[in-house]
């Protein structure tokens, strides 16, 4: 029996107080995610229950009970507090998926500081703009990533502490670098958890925008209410489940549903810090006896590509419930998973700003392959006309997804960017920036982004950020970056460039430009294809018309070109 039950019953009787009561939270009282994910589970008698099972490269493995999780997060919290980290200071977590990332995240929250997770594959430029924007005071990282920080440290006088969790005890540390070995630190049994309230800041995730710098999405401790309830109702985690969320906590799925939701429920989750291959993943499911699996369409399509035969080599019979997030899950993937695993993937829809799942296929509900599902009870939704912003009542007509901004996990702002934040709201609706239609039964059908942002493997990439970085390459005169369709990643980055005099459009130069972006920004932002052009299409006012290039890539109608400079 699923936690969710009937959609109609849940929708008719919904109140967020359901989660508040289950979590024994009294409005106006103290609510600290770090405490809820560790101490509360122990106080309820589950201290000996396995919380985290981890495996890394080279056959490394570790596991933590809830009591060990509680003490380890206390220890990290106390260490940070002793350094002088204050409530609301930003502390960046810049690590691969090692235990310190998960424990550090909760340790930061316990002392009332703001956790700022960043994807460890970010290059120095991507890292710098996010640390600089947040005025981050401390960064917790690994030895392998220190080189990137050293390249930019001189530009960041506010970054006082670079905490290295795996220092080899040999190499000389530089100014501001501090070693911290969790296994050797004196365990802190008791920590005064900071009495954060509902609206106290908790997590600062960065997401890409169409123009300008990445935006810091501010969340608060009260987000726990919807993260807890969606974990319970959508992911359907139960007492004896082994849960595997494949997302990296550098992104929001990895924190909302890779840390907060499952730990607040007292679940056992497993984490693998090993690169993707179908064999690795299936072996992991078999070994850990994973029951609930939350993954992403790109991974699912990669598994489809690996074929059916490999599935039969492993015992995957432990799997009970599958869900997906990141980009729209195509119908073929749902049908395929039903055929090979005997279970369909349940698509879920949400984003960094929403903080928790807002539209979903719920356990037990009829799945329409290719649909995102229905709105979470308690989230009021509509489709708005693209021009008038009035709700569309006609089923099947595409418009903008709109949500009433009243669920607990919705962002509270963009860091130091109130103008951009205000633009996300129209006529009392929050607009995620995606287009969709709704059918007669209330199912959402994704139709595309409403802007130029590139969704590659579920990660958003700003064309502006890539274009700006391209211009720093010595050979590039001008650039335009668009999404290109891709069978596995849905979209990948494609760049059109014009070259400066003296440079030849060679294959080696293309590779050099690709690697330049990979190191500066990240592998996600690296153009998978570069097309050399003589000139870029521009408006008469000189603005590059990305949409023409995008239409060309997608085989779409070019549309109105009346403003084209050289038409």
């Amino acid at each position: 029996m699923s936690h969710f039950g009937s959609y109609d019953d849940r929708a008719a009787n919904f109140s967020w107080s359901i989660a508040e009561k289950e979590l024994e939270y009294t409005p106006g009282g103290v609510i600290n995610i770090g405490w809820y994910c560790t101490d509360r589970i122990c106080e309820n008698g589950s201290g000996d229950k396995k919380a985290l099972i981890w495996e890394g490269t080279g056959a490394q493995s570790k596991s933590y009970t809830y009591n060990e999780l509680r003490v380890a997060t206390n220890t990290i919290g106390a260490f940070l507090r002793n350094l002088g980290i204050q409530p609301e200071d930003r502390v960046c977590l810049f690590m691969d998926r090692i235990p310190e990332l998960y424990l550090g995240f909760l340790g930061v929250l316990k002392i009332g500081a703001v956790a700022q997770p960043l994807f460890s594959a970010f290059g120095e430029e991507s890292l710098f703009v996010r640390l600089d924007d947040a005025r981050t005071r401390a960064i917790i990282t690994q030895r392998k990533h220190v080189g990137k920080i050293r390249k930019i440290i001189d530009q960041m006088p506010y970054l006082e502490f670079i905490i290295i969790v795996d220092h080899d005890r040999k190499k000389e540390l530089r100014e501001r670098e501090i070693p911290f070995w969790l296994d050797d630190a004196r365990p802190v049994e008791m920590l005064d958890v900071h009495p954060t309230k509902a609206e106290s800041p908790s997590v600062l995730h960065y997401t890409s925008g169409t123009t300008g710098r990445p935006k810091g999405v501010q969340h608060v401790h009260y987000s726990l209410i919807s993260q807890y309830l969606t974990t319970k109702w959508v992911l359907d985690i139960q007492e004896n489940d082994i849960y595997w969320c494949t997302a990296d906590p550098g992104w929001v799925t990895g924190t909302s549903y890779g840390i907060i939701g499952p730990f607040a429920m007292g679940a056992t989750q497993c984490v693998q810090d090993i690169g993707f291959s179908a064999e690795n993943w299936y072996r992991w499911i078999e070994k850990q006896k994973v029951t609930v699996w939350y993954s992403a369409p790109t991974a699912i399509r990669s598994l489809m590509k690996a074929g059916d035969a490999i599935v039969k080599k492993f015992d995957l019979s432990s799997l009970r419930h599958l869900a997906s997030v990141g980009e729209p899950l195509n119908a073929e993937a749902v049908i395929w998973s039903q055929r090979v695993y005997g279970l369909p993937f349940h698509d879920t829809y949400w984003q960094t700003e929403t903080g928790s799942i807002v539209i979903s296929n719920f356990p037990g509900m009829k799945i329409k392959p290719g649909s995102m599902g229905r709105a979470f009870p308690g989230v009021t939704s509509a489709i708005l006309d693209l021009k008038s912003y009035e709700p569309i009542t006609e089923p099947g007509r595409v418009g903008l997804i709109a949500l009433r901004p009243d669920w607990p996990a919705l962002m509270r702002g963009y860091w130091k960017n109130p103008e951009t934040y205000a633009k996300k709201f129209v006529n009392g609706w929050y607009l995620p920036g995606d287009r969709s239609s709704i059918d007669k039964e209330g199912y959402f059908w994704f139709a595309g982004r409403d802007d130029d942002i590139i969704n590659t493997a579920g990660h958003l990439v700003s064309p502006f950020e890539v274009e700006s970085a391209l211009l720093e390459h010595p050979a590039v005169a001008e650039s335009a970056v668009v999404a290109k369709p891709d069978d596995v990643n849905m979209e990948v980055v494609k760049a059109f460039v014009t070259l400066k005099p003296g440079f030849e459009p060679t294959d080696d130069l293309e590779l050099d430009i690709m690697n330049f972006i990979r190191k500066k920004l990240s592998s996600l932002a690296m153009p998978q294809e570069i097309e050399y052009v003589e000139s870029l299409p521009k408006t008469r006012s000189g603005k590059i018309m990305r949409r023409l290039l995008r239409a060309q890539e997608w085989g779409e109608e070019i549309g109105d070109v009346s403003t084209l400079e050289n038409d």
Partner: protein
Amino acid sequence: MDEMKDVILKYVKNEYLEDEDQEIGYDTPLISGGIVDSFSMVSLKRFLENKYKISIPDDKATPEAFDSVTRIVVLVNQFVK
């Protein structure tokens, strides 16, 4: 053959290794070891294609085929004339 192995190993070390202290060899897992991610694999494939004047079909450019220098050499040799 050995020369190709060394060229590829050197390229991987220079381009993808973040931890300068990490030692890698011909059989070090690159993809499953987290040294080269699936997106970066595209640039590694492009390097091989440029260097050895070959074209590797997408269906052959799998994480398994790119998981070590030794395996990459086997893959490249299928296409080198």
